[in-house]
């Protein structure tokens, strides 16, 4: 497995084989076309790639490159127009809406740029939300939510409303919510987009800790600095994968934080 050393990792040590061999996500020649009345938008024009368990992938690309569409398909929010998507060896096209909802509930966790928390609802209740749809009993739901908030370091703010939390804290709640049903994959769409530089790195630190424990993380970003915290970089352009390479020198968030000035209170 990956030795989590304090220093940058060399290319020899980050070969694909070091992540657990099996593909969690496998897409084969996936196309996605949107029909907007008179025009058709080819958002994805044949994407083939696979992501193995334990990987930390950063997806980059300009607007309209298809990266968001790709994320939506991976996240089972949308279906490909053609091609195959195998999630943990299950062909997603065979699944009905209810089963897809189940996948979104238990297998995949989402983190959004705008946090997307429910207003006037406490951090604990926000975190608990996915468990309500998982039909777990009350005591278990509560415990899971508490554990998730502890994992992101927000145990003292469980009863706060989003309006009483900073951007970074809100995003942490969102991450806790994404983790509460113990998914195998975390999808993050521009998670640092609304955060200042230091908070962004703090969030990346959380991601790296989670990845070190074995969680597969796929991240969309347009910032190179943020992408450097991942281990693999996939670049989309015009609906196709343009580059897919391992990151040679992964930035380590905990190290970077030491070099950053603290935000004055």
């Amino acid at each position: 497995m990956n030795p989590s050393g304090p220093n940058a990792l060399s290319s020899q040590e980050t070969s694909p084989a070091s992540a657990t061999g099996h593909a969690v996500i496998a897409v084969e020649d996936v196309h996605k076309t949107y029909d907007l009345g008179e025009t058709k938008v080819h958002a994805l024009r044949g994407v083939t790639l696979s992501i193995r368990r334990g990987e930390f992938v950063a997806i980059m690309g300009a607007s309209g490159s298809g990266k968001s569409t790709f994320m939506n398909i991976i996240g089972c929010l949308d279906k490909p127009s053609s091609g195959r998507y195998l999630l943990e060896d299950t062909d997603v096209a065979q699944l009905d809406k209810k089963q897809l909802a189940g996948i979104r509930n238990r297998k995949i966790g989402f983190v959004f740029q705008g946090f997307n928390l429910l207003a006037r609802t406490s951090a604990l209740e926000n975190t608990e939300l996915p468990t309500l749809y998982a039909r777990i009993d009350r005591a278990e739901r509560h415990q899971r939510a508490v554990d998730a908030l502890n994992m992101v370091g927000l145990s003292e703010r469980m009863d706060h409303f989003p309006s009483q939390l900073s951007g970074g804290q809100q995003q942490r709640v969102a991450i806790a919510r994404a983790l509460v049903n113990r998914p195998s994959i975390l999808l993050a769409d521009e998670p640092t987009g609304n955060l200042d530089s230091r908070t962004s790195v703090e969030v990346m630190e959380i991601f790296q800790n989670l990845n070190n424990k074995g969680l597969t993380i796929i991240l969309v970003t347009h910032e190179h600095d943020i992408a450097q915290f991942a281990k693999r970089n996939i670049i989309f352009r015009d609906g196709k994968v343009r580059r897919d390479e391992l990151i040679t020198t992964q930035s380590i968030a905990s190290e970077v934080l030491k070099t950053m000035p603290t935000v004055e209170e």
Partner: protein
Amino acid sequence: MDLLSTMRTALRALARNKMRSILTMLGMVIGVGAVIAMLGIGQGADQTMQKQIANLGSNMLFVTSGSMNLGGLRLGWGATKTLVRDDVTAMVKECHAVAAAAPGTQTTAQVVYGNDNWGTRVTGTTPEYFEIRTWPFQSGASFTEDDVTTAANVAVIGDTVRKNLFAATDPVGKTVRIGNLPFMVVGVLEAKGQSPAMSEDQDDTIIMPLTTLQKKITGQTWLRWVMLSAKSQSASYAAKQQIEALLRDRHRIREGQPDDFSVRNLAEFAQAASETSSVMTLLLGSIAGISLLVGGVMIMNIMLVSVTERTREIGIRLAIGATESDVQHQFLTEAVVISLLGGALGILIGLVASFVISTTVGWPILVSPMAIAGSAAVSMAVGIFFGYYPAQKAAQLDPIDALRYE
């Protein structure tokens, strides 16, 4: 999501905007309150009427000329001319279950005393009428059989006529003019009050010998009705059958031909009156029920607005694993909670209103448990029906579009 969590989420969502929730409920509150009060008035009137009819004596029978089908008592009265006095004599003689009979007909006329006049109902009958109806006199007495034989110009007046023409004077012995003929007042009946059964003032009446009315005022020889008493309550059914057989024979009505008369014993009488009353109650209730419709539309309207406002929230829920039915149940539950709460409040207000009406105006009010249960059920149905469309809209949102909604 299980039911309890759904309920809590719904209540939480409604509590988030208390003012709006209360205003939305208002339609249901007013609607249900009005329905409860209207039904209460209608059923109260029906119950009082039933009591009054029961008080009339349970062995009373009523024969009317012309046949009537259902509902109103006034339909078909006096439509045929075949019921005559000889029929009545035969009834008393040949129908063994019959104790007494009083033939009758009526018209309206202006009665004058001194400088005052008063338009009222004038009935022509025989002295048995007062016994059969157990109607006592406050002064004077009934006219006699001789008066009937001689078609004397005598009259008995009701309390309302007395009040309007005689004020404090004793009417007995005085002369009034009916039509253009002089009549001597021989008796004044005790006040009986409004009859919900007949929906008329029973005291607004003048009663004179049948023959006098027929010969000197209307010129008609046929009867409108015959009022009878059976020998006992248990004999009243037998009496009815005997009378029917007799009249069919006398009027030469063959098998299969419809009767040109109707015989009703008290139970049927009460039934017919009750049917009228039910129709009235239903009408009142339906009009009130229209406001329930408005209440439902209000709920649907606000739910639609709510769904649009919470598009983002719905997107989030769908993204983290809510199924379409989870979302649908959530919004449907909110609608039903509003309508049920509104209904409960409406029932409370309806009860209060009924109480206030009955104590101030004096109308009898009867709110049955059925009315309350029915209103609660209808409230729930309104919530489900009018909440369905908004809930569907919410459930069918595309998660990606919903998440992008500003």
